[in-house]
């Protein structure tokens, strides 16, 4: 179903958001993506993707408490919903089954 479809970047953000638990907000995601994959992504790209995921119902966002280091502005935290978790698992399973059918790309063969 097209509704369950996950883009590569969407998947990356959701995975990192699950990993970071309650610490996942816009800039933190940027940093983590840089740390994990070395990719430079803009704040705009992350927020745009989160907005899209929220529309699809894969993530929820909520505002945190006020903070000191950013002039009192609150952070918008991201929590992956149950539907989101299911979609992630589904996406992994689909890929795993594909991978398993390609022996040429198995770790020992490259």
């Amino acid at each position, binding site marked *: 179903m097209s509704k369950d479809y996950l883009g590569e970047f969407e998947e990356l953000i959701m995975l990192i958001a699950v990993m970071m638990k309650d610490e996942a*907000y*816009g*800039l933190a995601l*940027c940093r983590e993506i840089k740390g994990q994959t070395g990719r430079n992504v*803009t*704040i*705009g*790209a992350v*927020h*745009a993707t989160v*907005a*899209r995921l929220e529309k699809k119902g894969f993530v929820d966002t909520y*505002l945190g408490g006020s*903070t000191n*280091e*950013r*002039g009192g*502005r*609150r*952070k*918008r935290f991201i929590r992956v919903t149950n539907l989101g978790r299911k979609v992630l698992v589904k996406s992994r399973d689909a890929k795993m089954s594909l991978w398993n059918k390609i022996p040429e790309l198995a770790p020992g063969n490259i």
Partner: protein
Amino acid sequence: MRSRRNRPPRLADKILSWFCDPDLHEAIQGDLHEYYNDAKSNSWKTKFRYWFQVVNLLRPFAFRDMKIFNGRFFTLLRFHLKISGKTYLKNKVLTAVNLFGLVIGIGVSFLIWAFVSHELTYDRSFPNSERVFRVIRNWQGGEKFGTSVSAPFAEALRAEFPEVITTTRLYHSENNIVMKADKVFREEYVLAADATFFEVFGTSLIHGNTSECLRSPGSVVISESAALKLFNESNPTGNNIAIESSDLGISEKNYVITGVFDDFSPNSHMAPDFLISSSSFPFMNNPNPLNHFLKTYVLLQNTEQSKQVEERLPAFMERFYGTDYFNYSRSTYLLQPLDDIHLNSIVHKASYESSKGSYFAVSFFPALAVFILIISVINFVNLHTSHSIGRKKETWVKKVNGASLFQETGYLVLDSVIIFLVALFIAICTIEFFFTDFESFVDRQIDRQFLYSSQNIVLVLSIVVALGILSGLHPAVMLVSSDMLKEKKAVTGVKKTGVFLNSKLIILQFMICMFFLAGSIFIFKQFRYLNSETNRGFNKENVLLIKNPWYLGESHAAFKQALTSNRNIISISGSESVPGINNFSTWGHPVDSADDDSHITVFYCDEQYVNTLGLKLVEGRFFSKGHKTDNLAIVLNETAVKKLGWDDPIGKRYRLDTVFHVIGVIQDIHFESLHNAIDPMGMVLIRPGTESFISIRIASDEIAKTVSFVNDVWGSFVANRPIDYTFLDKEFASWYTTDRKMGMITAVLSALAIILSCLGILGLMFYTILRRTKEIGIRKVFGASTLDIHLLFIQDTSKWLMMAFVLAIPFSVLAMKKWLQDFAYRAEISWWIFAIAGLAVYLIALACILFQSYRAAHQNPIDSLRYE
């Protein structure tokens, strides 16, 4: 805590809060600030990255909900623009052709406008520009004015006129060598200037004291670029440089740098790099009031006073020079406004003026720009009209559904405005790409800051938008008002109104084409004439010219002797003046005449002059070594003989400092460009060693080898001073560079005009044929041949072209006459120029028509009639 200075760019934040959805704004802004603080620096790089992040947020998800855009008006507009975009993309060729025409029209006009506005703003950058005047004078009531006046003049002027605040005098030295420790530079722009220089022009110094820097002897003020070139730093004040200049009569003399000034703006008439204090040179105080050699500038209290001063000048002159000389010289002295210097053609271009503009170019080029723009706009109207026909059904559907006619017209006009703006954008991008080439072509450095200043941008944008509205109006109104019932149902004939306006536009377009083409042909003709005219009387090919022979000093004769050993060198001559470079110094008058009017200009040359330059003797003989008395002999040119009214000139007497006998007459040659008439001239024998030029005639087959031989010989006589040489024919060509460029521009523009007009006529034919498809079908059914159909269209167009031809002639003749006024020698404006131009344009247009009517004539009537 963030320090006050270390904060992200405010403007970026403002923009963000303007477009960003309020629900998201707080979190995003917070993320951005945190991001900024992460960098822990305040450099421009961090700021740039911050801006990049903000711009990157311009995505639909982040936009606030703009309710106004969801109204009926904007929904319809969005819909319209979408459809427009699609139809433009569908007609790719038509759209591309249309854009191409507009880009050329707008681009050419923009470039010409950049050039003209540069020319018109010359010398406006001096703070005092409106109050500074240059003293100019003519000689014996002559037409042209010179710029040199004598040394004591300035001081006398100051004492006489209370209106004059102060004056400054300049002496230009062209050939200079500047030495700094071990480094040697050739410099072309050294001025000896009075201490009041900066006071008069009102410019200030970067380093040094404006009123003191040029006061004491031995001080020099240099431009910033010279400072960077010599010292690699912008403040070398207090350092020494040595200057050598033959014009100023100094060799390796030391000067102290007392100041540094900002380089003069590229559109100033002078561009000095070194200003030496005038007190360093005793000759700047030469008390002789008749020795005219200094440029004098005057600072008045206000602009209007120049007229009052000029009125009282003659009386002052009479006292200053004494009545005798005043009556004899019949000179008029005038005050030339500073901003008049660049474009005024009455005043001779002085050597220190960087370039000379022309009023003709400045008034003629805008006309060309307007013409090209008109052509491309007409083009647009025609092509856009044929494009609009494709959108008839769309408009009808909208009308049936109750669209407001006014609004619909507005939308269609908006289309054309958008196309114009896109064309402007493409044009400016293209121009930026070629801008340096353009600058070197027109030989100017154009000030980009001025060109892209906000007021200019607003001006250009409003012109382009206005043009877009004007030219979009006709197709839009035609489309919206087209009556669908009549056109769908009734078997109408040809609807005339639409075609009528367009065919008038075509007449205008082809008129301009013929104007351009006739102009190019004529300019070409004038050049051929000038070329044949300059070649009369002497042979300018293969003459090498040494321009700095004074370095030879005592070894002049030995140098010439060494050269004669080479068999490729035919003859060598030293002289004070050569054709192409004027350097006259003496005037005289005939002994047996009381008429003061019959003065001629005289210069010095040696015995070989006639042979070397290939002059032709008409009467008598030239100087020769065998005649001992030749140092009191004079040779005249034909014009001089005519002016003096001598039937048998040989043996007549002429007075310079002493009495000279006429021994020969040479055929007239052009010593100056053909913009000027031939002057009456005479030649007398030069004292060896005082030559300003050495001319060497070389056999034509081994030029390169001989030049290097001359170079070697020079090197063996003069150490450390490079030879400065040129070829005579090159000097000649340099006179006409402006004219040649003008010819090139006109030729290029006429090619563009013709291409654009062809595009226009193709579009118009496309449109006409489309309208008359059924008519053609019916004609064919009733037995019209292919030729008949072709003739149908050719007849129409021939009518327009004839009209264009007749209308173009008077304008062309007028423009040509105006252009010729600048030349003393003029080619004839012959009828065949117009015949060729008219015929060429007609044939080209005919080809375009046939190309289109071919399709119409060969289509099967079934296709065009079967809808009924």
